[in-house]
């Protein structure tokens, strides 16, 4: 049974591509057959985050227009043999593909992959409609900021209107020092406002920038964000994993004092 997951947010720059890359890589590391599809036609980015930009021959638009077979356009990942990328076209625009074509292409991929992950462009126009057309479930990415949460709420409404069966929330770039000061909404605040199930809490971690610089997804690595993405992968795959201490916002200091209290 394959599952088609769209990673979306409404607002740009909140971490859709980073989330797609890490969740896709993490699932492949668990032995799943995964294809990552970049649906952001004209502004492709997933290839650079994955470090596969130099291997692209054909793209999504070529597949849809019949210039090549799907197999020819798939880029095999450097690290995991069961992970593939279908890059988007850089020189075309969103209108080059329509939702019906996306549904048709995805149905061809379904019997070959366990997970089909669609990296959605920002906005709610045609690119968004293309990305959600064939999706079974959605990961909505937001940061704990007013503008990003507002857009996420709008996106959730649209996903529900399009009858996406399962919608889960990823809260990205959480800064626990700011939450503690009362200067950032906590994960509970965000979940309370958006009222959809939570699937991941990703702390603001400079290692994400470093990983993107290198074109190496950091999922599973010994970093806060790496562990957070790993947990998202487990949860996507149906395993219940508790939210880690750092995810809940227990600081180093609380842990230290906790040790003294116990003894």
């Amino acid at each position: 049974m394959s599952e088609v997951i769209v990673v979306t947010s409404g607002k740009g720059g909140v971490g859709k591509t980073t989330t797609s890359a890490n969740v896709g890589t993490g699932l492949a590391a668990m032995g799943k057959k995964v294809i990552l599809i970049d649906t952001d036609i004209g502004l492709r980015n997933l290839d650079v985050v994955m470090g596969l930009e130099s291997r692209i021959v054909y793209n999504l638009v070529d597949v849809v227009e019949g210039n090549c077979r799907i197999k020819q356009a798939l880029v095999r990942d450097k690290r995991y043999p069961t992970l593939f990328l279908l890059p988007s076209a850089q020189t075309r625009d969103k209108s080059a593909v329509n939702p019906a074509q996306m549904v048709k292409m995805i149905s061809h991929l379904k019997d070959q992959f366990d997970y089909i992950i669609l990296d959605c462009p920002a906005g709610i126009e045609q690119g968004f409609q293309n990305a959600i057309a064939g999706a079974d479930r959605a990961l909505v990415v937001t940061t704990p900021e007013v503008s990003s949460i507002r857009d996420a709420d709008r996106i959730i409404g649209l996903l529900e209107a399009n009858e996406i069966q399962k919608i889960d929330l990823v809260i990205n770039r959480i800064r626990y020092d700011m939450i503690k000061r009362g200067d950032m909404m906590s994960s509970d605040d965000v979940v309370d406002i958006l009222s959809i199930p939570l699937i991941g809490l990703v702390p603001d971690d400079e290692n994400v920038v470093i990983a993107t610089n290198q074109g190496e997804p950091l999922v599973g690595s010994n970093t806060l964000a790496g562990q957070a993405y790993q947990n998202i992968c487990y949860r996507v795959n149906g395993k219940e994993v508790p939210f880690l201490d750092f995810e809940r916002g227990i600081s180093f200091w609380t842990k230290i004092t906790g040790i003294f209290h116990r003894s």
Partner: protein
Amino acid sequence: MFKNILKRKSSREIAKDRLKILLISDRVNCSPEMMEMIKNDIAKVISKYMKIDTESMEIQITKTSIKGRTKNPTLYANIPILDLKQ
């Protein structure tokens, strides 16, 4: 001065409050002005039958979900009654 510091809302609370109001109008595609008009009309109708506190009455549109399944948006009105007798 100390009281002022204690009273001051954190930016987290400000953000939460702003979002809650903002999303109400976003969700139903109706402006805060329209909400105000609905509120005034409800107040007018209820006032025919009982004395209510129009100053502190609140109306709100909420979207609650049960196990991920979304219910339709619901309009809640919180109208304090001052006097039941006419």
